[in-house]
């Protein structure tokens, strides 16, 4: 996907991300209890992804301050997100652990929920390599 900041493209990205997750064989094979909500803070845009029993049931685009609740958050510069969203990320942009240890990614909120869902979340995050990022 070509990076852009238009609202239409952000909505298209949200649909593409949800579709990629719901069509992913690994998530569908192991996602029976994959249930959580999280914020993706890309500096220029924000999204709240809600997953229930392995299905993406909602992606809020640029929600207002109190509009959508979430359990944990991933915050980084737009540049870091652009580095996540390529087929083969460069070293230190190849995951949330590497980017939080060595780059500017911050993991915030209820990290226990992230850990409880880590297997499927890790796969879902890697879908950015094929879907791209909307910043």
């Amino acid at each position, binding site marked *: 996907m070509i990076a852009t900041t238009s609202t239409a493209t952000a909505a298209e990205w949200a649909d593409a991300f949800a579709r990629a997750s719901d069509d992913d064989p690994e998530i569908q094979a192991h996602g029976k209890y994959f249930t959580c909500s999280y914020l993706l803070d890309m500096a220029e845009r924000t999204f709240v992804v809600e997953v229930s029993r392995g299905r993406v049931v909602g992606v809020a685009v640029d929600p207002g301050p109190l509009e959508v609740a979430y359990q944990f958050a991933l915050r980084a510069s737009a540049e870091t997100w652009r580095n996540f969203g390529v087929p083969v990320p460069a070293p230190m942009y190849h995951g*949330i*652990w590497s980017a939080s240890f060595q780059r500017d990614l911050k993991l915030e909120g209820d990290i*226990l929920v992230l850990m409880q869902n880590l297997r499927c979340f890790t796969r879902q995050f890697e879908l950015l390599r094929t879907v791209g990022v909307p910043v």
Partner: protein
Amino acid sequence: MSKISPVTGHYVDVDVDGLLYKVFYLENGNGQPLVCQHTAGCHNHQWRGLLSDEEITKDYRVIAYDLPRHGKSDPPENTQWWTEEYQLSADHYANFVVALVDALELENPIFMGSSFGGNIALQLALRRPDRFAGVIPVEGADHSPGFYLDWWQHPHANAAQVCASGVWDLMAPQSPDADRWKTWFYYSQGSEAFKGDLYFYSVDHDLRDKLGEIDGDQCPVVMLTGDYDYLTTPEDSARTAGQIKGGEFIEMKEIGHFPMSENHAVFRTYLLQALALLRMKAGAAATA
């Protein structure tokens, strides 16, 4: 035609620091012993590619053991280990490896380990340069804080999945899916030992003011680290090797923290360079 592998498994009794262990190891090949330590919370199948690598096993006796509490090596036979928290110390870890090579009656062994195995390789070079012909610390450094985390054993999360997916990003995206997933699978089996291993890796291991004491002439040190390793980066290993007398460092490209397990085909090209360097240094020492 038989498809039985030439790799064989054995058990050996090891008595160290008052603890009795029945230690499992896999081996193949003939020549100078190359003793291989797996990473924290894992087991010797990480060395499966090396164990069946004909070019290396024709010149080296590759021995890949399971550290006690890992794989097929049980916790100690003579203590109520379940009544204590497992925290691996540098002293016990180093004493164990020396006791193991003694029990196997190995002469001039090379020691190679990855991650917490790379760190103990540095400890062995410091403590017992007389007992090893050389060490190859893989993904090792003088100090590696930050991974002694409660998440590995948190009772409210699935420890098997947290350990396995928690180390997923330590591997390079270029490494083959099948090998990365085997490594993931191994890590789903070792959560009870993983955190205690990391006590050594991130807490008890600290050689920042001791690297200058390593006798790199008697026990040459050749370090290998992958560019996708975020825990022990190439910069960390280069800094470490630079402070060791005669220390060498080779950066490995497009590979991560579990090189022998995630991509043996790439790792072996660097390992062959490291082994050649050790042969060269041994030859130079013999003629000096």
